């Protein structure tokens, strides 16, 4: 196994283990407010300092990892599967089916989904548990995030459908289902892996943005998205380098995911 595979694997394993061991590594928890140490720089007591309410940033990164690293890939998987189903099938079937599916996809791309999300929040009780709120948020993101990939997948599937080897396979009597799963689907993997990989950070950030609608992770629970939103303040006042740790960690995790998936990304000819 090359270094290019070992390093990301080790990093991901470290990050996941740290998040699992959060209650041991940061026993005070993510919600405890050290009110005499507001916005403090890193120290022995607080390795990444404290936030604007005196909460230990290191603990919040660890606990935030659980939410974001578990649910964002799950939502990314959902959106990828939906994109594959809708886009891939439409491209494979072609003709009117493809046109109708793509018209619906374009509509999906254009509609102001903000209002659906506002309605979704209104339908949930105000006292819903933070876990349910965050689950609903990532579910909605997964259900709405398939459209861009569907278009690319439709085009990929259409290209494969009209290729010589598929025509040959069809002529030699291969059934439609087998043709799709054995010959067409594997050629969609470059786009599918790209969609999956892109969706992870996009959904992590989107979850924080949905906080303005009352969705997403509820206080005092942390998420990487909410930690990254802090960066908006830093632009005005320059770097407090420890506040970039969530960003660096997310970039490392996302790059590690990609390096691990790179062989599968390239797919089979």
């Amino acid at each position: 196994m090359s270094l290019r595979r070992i390093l990301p694997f080790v990093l991901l394993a470290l990050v996941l283990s740290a998040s699992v061991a959060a209650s041991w590594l940061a026993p005070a928890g993510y919600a405890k407010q050290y009110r005499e140490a507001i916005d403090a720089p890193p120290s022995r007591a607080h390795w990444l300092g404290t936030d604007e309410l005196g909460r230990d940033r290191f603990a919040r990164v660890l606990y935030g990892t659980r939410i974001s690293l578990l649910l964002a890939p799950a939502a990314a998987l959902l959106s990828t599967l939906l994109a594959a189903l809708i886009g891939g099938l439409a491209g494979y079937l072609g003709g009117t089916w493809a046109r109708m599916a793509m018209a619906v996809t374009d509509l999906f791309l254009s509609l102001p989904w903000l209002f659906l999300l506002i309605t979704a929040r209104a339908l949930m009780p105000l006292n819903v548990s933070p876990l349910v709120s965050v689950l609903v948020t990532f579910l909605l993101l997964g259900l709405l995030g398939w459209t861009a990939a569907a278009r690319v997948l439709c085009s990929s599937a259409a290209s494969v459908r009209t290729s010589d080897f598929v025509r040959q396979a069809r002529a030699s009597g291969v059934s439609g289902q087998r043709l799709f799963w054995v010959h067409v689907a594997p050629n969609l993997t470059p786009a599918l892996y790209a969609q999956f990989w892109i969706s992870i950070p996009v959904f992590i950030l989107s979850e924080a943005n949905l906080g303005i609608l009352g969705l997403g992770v509820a206080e005092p629970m942390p998420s990487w998205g909410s930690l990254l939103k802090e960066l908006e303040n830093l632009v005005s006042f320059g770097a407090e380098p420890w506040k970039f740790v969530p960003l660096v960690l997310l970039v490392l995790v996302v790059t590690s995911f990609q390096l691990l998936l790179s062989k599968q990304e390239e797919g089979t000819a």
Partner: protein
Amino acid sequence: MHGLRWKIAGHALALLATVLVGGLLSATMVRLAPGFDADERELDPHLNAQSLQALREARHHDDNIISFYVDYMKRAAHGDLGNSLALGQPVRTLLRQRLPLTVQLLGIGLVLSWSLTSMLALSAAWLRLPTYDTMATAISGMLLCLPAAVLALLSVLWNAPGAIAIALIVFPHTYRYARNLLVKAYSRPHILAARAKGLREARILFWHVVPVVMPQMLALAGVSVSMAIGATIPVEALCGLPGIGQLAWQAALARDLPLLVNITILVTLVTLLANSSADVIGSMFRRQEA
């Protein structure tokens, strides 16, 4: 020829129908979302009961969404796109004032993002150097992980044009797809054979790789237009650029139904045109290849 005209007419009609359905759906979503009837002015303690009542009645005017939309389409047919509730100006004037700036922002942003995408994706596929690929991945990964608002604020901080922020928001989305498609295309057996035989790289690229990936790249290009449109909202709002994105955000916050319906119709039209054009040109490449 006759058949082609009917085909074009059919496509145009389908486009129009989709756009109109989009307008109706967006009007319905806005109307049904909570807060439609609410007005910040209701919290002003200076207003007496009659004024508050008048405020509420004004908003109830658009209660029936079907009659609102039918009425809107009748007026739109005569060029009257209605009046913005939030800004108190004709929607047509607002769109006309702000469209050129957004078109410019989108145009430059997309050209920049695709230049960067093509350059990095092609070189990654061409060179197949693991270190180079990892670096390009890390750069695009970092841009993906930065909130769009931060990229917009950085462009304000560094006095960079808003188009650069748009380009940096769109680029990481398109790069990964483009890179994967090109890598896969270059890994096909006949390309490997051509390289082994010493065929010129430019010839391989333009004659054997581009035609294969073009349909998907065009589809991606079509979709990137929607991504760029979405990116205009934080970029225009934070960079103080008075374009359609900023208008859309103001309209959303104010539940400005006439403005939101018009903006949705405009966005749907642009999205459909971009993606349909990508489809048509892509299918030409497929026929060529076949």
